[in-house]
């Protein structure tokens, strides 16, 4: 029941929020819903057994028996941290927007809640039909979010995002179909249950079929992730989105989730596992270094952050390809860490944009003098983003790099090259935007308000906390990665 509640509360409250008339009602409703989700999630988290790799809190009801569709929910160590991430960040996101004035606040908060519900639904779904439904449902609120409250180029960005990722979803759907019918033909029973279909994959006889299914599913996931060269929807969508939209985008860790939950268990049974590993690793390494270089060339603060996100997401595929429990769990942790870090970074860029009216780094300057609180939070998150030890980014990166090096040294070396570049653009942006002489053209500037300080500061503290003590979430990731790896070891991959 608890999982259904966590998924449904945001969706139901989204509908209720739509009916509210004033900003106060809307934001209050949203806060109530997100806090309720947080409490339930924390309850679930504290009752979660991180030593076993199986699904917990399972719920299962028949839905469409003639097609083998069930309403099947459950969480394992891959999904739990991501649900936790969403549950934690969303209340802070509501607080962050607490004093904002914008048109149609009821729609705004309803869309935030809808996205949360859909995202958690993807993590909780254990039936492919349900999984795909939530997967697609994440698109629509974000499409509206970008289109209504986005920047000057919002229409182009939102439609590009919508269609590009929709294509990817549909290709993924083809992969699901392949999996579905392979099992159906073999057993004569239709069933879309995820764990069941994953276990049936190995019985497909045609090697080509297996590879096609794998690649189709993979395509859906890596576009969402995204990795180079399938990322071109991302810069525009993230940049044009309002800050809350950008944060919601980074909360949607469904691409990486799919890789861990669905791709890795299938990987050893494909006809050419080595090729698949190479694809994953190469995509990861290319994303890391390419994203870093493009970020270095950006002049818009938010765009720079977006490309840094591309770069960071490369670690997810690289670590997944590493196929060592350390690297895989590191990659999972990278998702968690990236969610925290990026949300603060986007909030910071949003605050700067609101205060100065520009995001062009060269037009800023010396903001630390006027916005000391923001400066402290920004320095901390930028450091986390560039992988400074003691913060979450480092835990993920070092796990991915050292774990992956065991099997794929060359790709790790490429990734290592990017670390300096990563540091360079972060520091360059900090230096230009926050330090140096204050640019008087920016006029009067006030520091972030207490709601913003609270939300950004608390997430920043979490970045520090999980950086110093990653075990609370890393342990369950480790359990699941060891499970995956032992499966592979049994297959001799």
């Amino acid at each position: 029941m608890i999982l259904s509640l966590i998924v449904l509360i945001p969706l139901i409250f989204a509908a209720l929020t739509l009916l509210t008339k004033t900003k106060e009602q809307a934001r209050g409703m949203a806060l109530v819903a997100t806090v309720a989700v947080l409490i339930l999630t924390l309850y679930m988290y504290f009752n979660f057994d991180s030593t076993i790799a199986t699904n917990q809190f399972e719920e299962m009801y028949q839905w469409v028996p003639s097609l083998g569709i069930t309403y099947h929910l459950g969480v394992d160590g891959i999904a739990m941290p991501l649900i936790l991430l969403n549950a934690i960040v969303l209340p802070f996101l509501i607080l962050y927007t607490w004093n904002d004035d914008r048109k149609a606040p009821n729609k705004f908060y309803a869309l935030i809640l809808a996205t949360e519900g859909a995202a958690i639904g993807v993590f909780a779904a254990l039936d492919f039909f349900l999984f795909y439904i939530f997967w697609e449902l994440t698109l629509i609120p974000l499409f509206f979010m970008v289109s209504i409250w986005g920047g000057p180029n919002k229409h182009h960005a939102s439609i590009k995002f919508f269609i590009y990722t929709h294509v990817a979803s549909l290709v993924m759907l083809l992969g699901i179909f392949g999996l579905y019918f392979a099992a159906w033909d073999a057993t004569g029973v239709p069933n879309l249950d995820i764990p069941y279909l994953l276990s049936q994959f190995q019985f497909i006889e045609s090697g080509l079929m297996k590879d096609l299914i794998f690649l189709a599913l993979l395509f859906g996931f890596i576009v969402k992730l995204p990795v180079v060269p399938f990322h071109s929807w991302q810069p525009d969508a993230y940049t044009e989105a309002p800050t809350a939209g950008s944060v919601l985008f980074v909360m949607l860790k469904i691409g990486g989730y799919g890789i861990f939950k669905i791709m890795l268990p299938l990987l050893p049974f494909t006809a050419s596992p080595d090729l698949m590993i190479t694809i994953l690793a190469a995509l990861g390494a290319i994303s890391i270094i390419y994203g870093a270089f493009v970020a270095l060339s950006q002049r818009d603060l938010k765009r720079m952050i977006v490309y840094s996100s591309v770069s960071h997401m490369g670690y997810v595929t690289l670590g997944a390809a590493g196929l060592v429990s350390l690297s895989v769990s590191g990659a999972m942790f990278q998702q968690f860490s990236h969610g925290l870090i990026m949300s603060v970074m986007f909030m910071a860029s949003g605050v700067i944009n609101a205060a100065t009216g520009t995001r062009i780094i060269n037009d800023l300057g010396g903001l630390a003098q006027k916005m000391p609180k923001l400066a402290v939070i920004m320095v901390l998150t930028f450091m986390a983003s560039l992988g400074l030890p003691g913060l979450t980014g480092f835990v993920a990166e070092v796990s991915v790099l050292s774990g992956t090096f065991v099997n794929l040294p060359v790709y790790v070396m490429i990734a290592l090259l990017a670390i300096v570049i990563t540091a360079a653009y972060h520091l360059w942006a900090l230096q230009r935007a926050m330090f140096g002489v204050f640019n008087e053209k920016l006029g009067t500037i006030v520091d972030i308000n207490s709601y913003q300080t609270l939300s950004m500061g608390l997430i920043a503290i979490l970045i520090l906390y999980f950086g110093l003590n990653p075990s609370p979430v890393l342990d369950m990731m480790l359990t699941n990665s060891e499970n995956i790896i032992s499966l592979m070891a049994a297959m001799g991959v």
Partner: protein
Amino acid sequence: MDLMLLAPEITLAVTGLAVLLIGLFLPVGSKKILGFIASIGVLAALVLTVTSLGTEAMMFNDTLSIDALSQFFKIVFLVVALLFTIASIKYMEGNKNAEEFFSLGIFATIGMMFVASANDLMVLFVAFELASLATYALAGFEKTNQKSLEASMKYFMIGSLSAALLLFGISFIYGMTGTTNIPAIAENAAGLVTNPIGIVAVILLIAGFGFKIALVPFHMWAPDTYQGSPSVVSSLLAAGSKKMGIVAAFKVFIVALIALQVEWQTVFAILAVVTMTYGNVVAVTQTSVKRMLAYSSLAQAGYISMAFVVLTPLALSGGILYALSHGFMKAGAFIATAAVVYMVLSENKDTEDPDHLDNFRGLGRRMPITALSMTIFVFALAGIPLTAGFTSKFVLFSSTIQAGFVWLAVIAILNSALSLYYYAKIVKYMYFLPTDADKVSEPLPYTIALVIAVIGVLAIGFWPEPFSYWAMEAAKVLIPGGM
């Protein structure tokens, strides 16, 4: 023989005649009542059909067959007819010819229903023509509107041509098999297969049905007619009479002409791909919403045609389910457009293109229910989950994969993604582009029709089980082998 099995048709016929007669004695002002009578009649027929789901019978010398397939399609037609009559209550307000309008609509529906249960080419052709003739008149109902007339004229001309092609084709089939009974044709198909005329006959039949389904290249009338006809009539044409072509083709090809399976499968493969691609690509550039929906209708017909290519029970059930879903979605979309057109025309009677995209600006604020319904319909047409469109695409496309037609599935998927572009454009105009115009009150009949359609779309999306079950039962009628 139990005439109760024909109760829905009889109810409709009585209603149609009653409307026609009562209308003669009513003053213009009170003709509103005709819409209610018609709606109640259609609703009654719908209820009768739904309650009789599952009965099987042969009637009138095996010329009519009551089975899951016919019942299912009758439900599709009745649902569309219901939406049509309810929405027309507003459209016909103050029109002195209302009785003709409603009775024509009802007769067209009767024609479609008989096509669905026809078990003989003769009955099928007659019923086909009944539906066509009624809709020709409906399309040109606005006698003083040049567009309506032009739409009707084109529909009529191409329709007549197609009828001739169809009849010519049927005559060959009859000549070579010696019968017009559909199952009997399959039994006597030997002459068809050996004679080269057989292929010509198949193509002629495809042209005849393709006209109704609006498959490229037999579609040329469709965009013009859908655009020019009154919007409610477009909804009947796109959502109803199109399905009539589909069910006729199902019966004739899959049951009667199964011996020539390879030939028509190839033709349908070509037509499906060309139709969906053409429909989507051209729809992208449209600025008239009705025309855009017309092209989208082409694309949807292309998807449904995939069922002929794949030809597995699952694919057929997908196609059948798609027909029902499309009935809700497309009828809903056209009715929403009708509401907008009504609103635009009531503001300015001489508006050149009342269904132009620009008139949808800010609709989210101006007509919230209409806009929300329209959003649901277009997202459903695009195949977004939890809508009927997704459920049917899920079944249909997945069957394509099952049968190994990966290339077809890929083309369909790409098309589906492309279609999102213009559907999203409508949403963009409704919600994201600003307008100065004020909020207007939404006419109640339109709203009721929209709500019914929305309920249908969401019901199939959220609870597909009964629908997919009956679709599979219907598919079993065509391919008795079962799953």
